[in-house]
């Protein structure tokens, strides 16, 4: 009940303060302000579920975009922070949604080190979202290291795509 009030309040807020910087609807949301109908594509199956089902792994298919990292790093650069601010906005607009943050690495380096690195990436993302006001208990993290890549070519372009944190909506 309280969350429904919050949603309404948020929508009202958006109507009243259209010029507020940084507060815009997440991509994919349709309908006018206060119309009460929202539509979006969501990514509700995590990478491991998709992999087990033989499906293609998802990149940026939902309202929450992937963020990418430099090699052997879990630092968030400016671009990553910008993406996460948008993701945070969406999460704050949809306060009942829970999300799992997956940490991934490219294929180079040791399996074990990459599992730990993926965990660091997922936690770094979670910590930043917490600092933006998203409640910590809405977010879980998991690392898949180099085990679930989006692509398998042995070049920098593919490696850069694989060094990511990916969001999975778990529903509410």
């Amino acid at each position, binding site marked *: 009940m309280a969350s429904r009030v919050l949603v309404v309040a948020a929508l009202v807020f958006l109507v009243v303060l259209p010029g507020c910087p940084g507060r815009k609807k997440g991509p994919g949301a349709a309908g006018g302000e206060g119309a009460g109908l929202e539509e979006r594509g969501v990514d509700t199956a995590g990478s*491991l579920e998709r*992999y*087990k089902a*033989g499906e293609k792994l998802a990149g940026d298919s939902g309202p929450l975009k992937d963020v990418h990292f430099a090699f*052997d790093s879990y630092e968030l650069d400016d671009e990553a922070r910008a993406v996460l601010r948008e993701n945070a906005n969406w999460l704050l607009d949809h306060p009942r949604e829970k999300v799992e943050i997956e940490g991934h690495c490219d*294929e*180079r*380096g*040791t*399996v*074990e*080190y990459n*599992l*730990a*690195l993926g*965990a*660091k990436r997922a*936690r770094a993302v979670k910590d930043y979202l917490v600092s933006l006001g998203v409640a910590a208990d809405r977010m879980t*993290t*998991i*690392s*898949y*290291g180099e*085990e*679930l890549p989006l692509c398998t070519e*042995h070049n920098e372009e593919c490696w850069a795509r694989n060094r990511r944190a990916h969001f999975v909506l778990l529903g509410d």
Partner: protein
Amino acid sequence: MNTWNRVGLALAGVLFFWVGAGDAQVRGTIFGPGSRSYPIAVSPLRNLSEGAVGRELGARFADILERDLVISGYFKIVDRATHIEQPQTSGTDAETINFDSWAVLGALALVKGTFQLEGDMLAVEVKLFDVAQRRQLTGRRYRGSVDLLRRMAHRFADEIMLQFTGERGPFDSRIAFVSNRDGRFKEVYVMSLDGGDLQQVTKAQSITVSPSWSPDTRYLLYTSYKRGNPDLFLLDVVSGRELVLSRRGGLNLGGRFSPDGSTIAMTLEEGANSEIVLLDRTGDLVKQLTEHWAIDVSPSWSPDGRQIAFCSNRSGTPQIYIMNADGTWVRRITYEGDYNTAPAWSPKGDRIAFVRRYEGGFNIFTIRPDGTDAKQLTQAAGNNEDPSWSPDGRYIVFSSNRTGRKKLYVMDASGVTQVQLTQGGGDDTSPAWSRWLE
């Protein structure tokens, strides 16, 4: 398939030994590994049985033995097509062998013997001869189920190496590894060094990584996502029983038994950070060893169980460190390169293998535990990773994608001989070399 049980019954209780006299003279004439220069002839075993069943076993024994001797890097095999003496029409002891017919082929050593198959039971008697001196160096009798033929050949290969190098060879052991050869899922497989006795031991249909052996070769530890989270599992290879040893939140990674089998070092992520801890065999936490914001992974025990090498990026980049087994006295041992991971401590204790990223490729190096004398072992392009030592400490099995897919290779501890072990489809990674089978 309880191969190991049958081994325990058959080989442990019913093995007869006798050793030739004066074998010490032969040692010292062998060149180093990689020379592939000591010419040895392996004659197929003579069939003492009447019937046609099992006739090929004598040749198969010789095939397996020859392959092991090639992998060892010490020997050159005299081509079987040039053999003058044939198994069924020649003798198998020093008095009855025509040594001249082997000397003329250039053979300096000779293997000859007999086998007898009665139902399912196989009896093998096999001997090693010095051709020039016309005398027996060593011999063995093996008796067991016919399934154990391969192990008998591996045991004799180890014995031949003992005779010529003074140290027992590594062939009667197992290699566990991860592969997706049978589908898209990475599962754990077990095989002998020559690729035989291949067996899939997990069917998690999920992601499974980082297998390692118990010192008694009975159990495997590995991390699997079959329950959704990366949990640490313990598999009894003999009974097939699997239980989850650690399912704490976050990573439960890289379990490694201490040399005395009492403790398991592993990485836990519980809380905020990956740390190396010790568990007992029931999965209870004994001690947390590292306490640092950095990534700490991949523990590897020294053979005396007193120290642990591991990988940490506490200096800013992943490097190899050593600490006492109680977590005290942490010191860094790699200072060259910006990416050094996957330490593996040799059973001899004198060197630690690891992986270094160097000019874009990943290669295997070894270094002394005091951080000196780093040596590069692999030179190939691409990724050469996951080193694991043989039980005798003279060989390293590793994974390489030098020909495209990741396959397992074995090399000697100086990197001279590099032999491809696995073939076929998929990627083979994370090899773990067991101790000698009981």
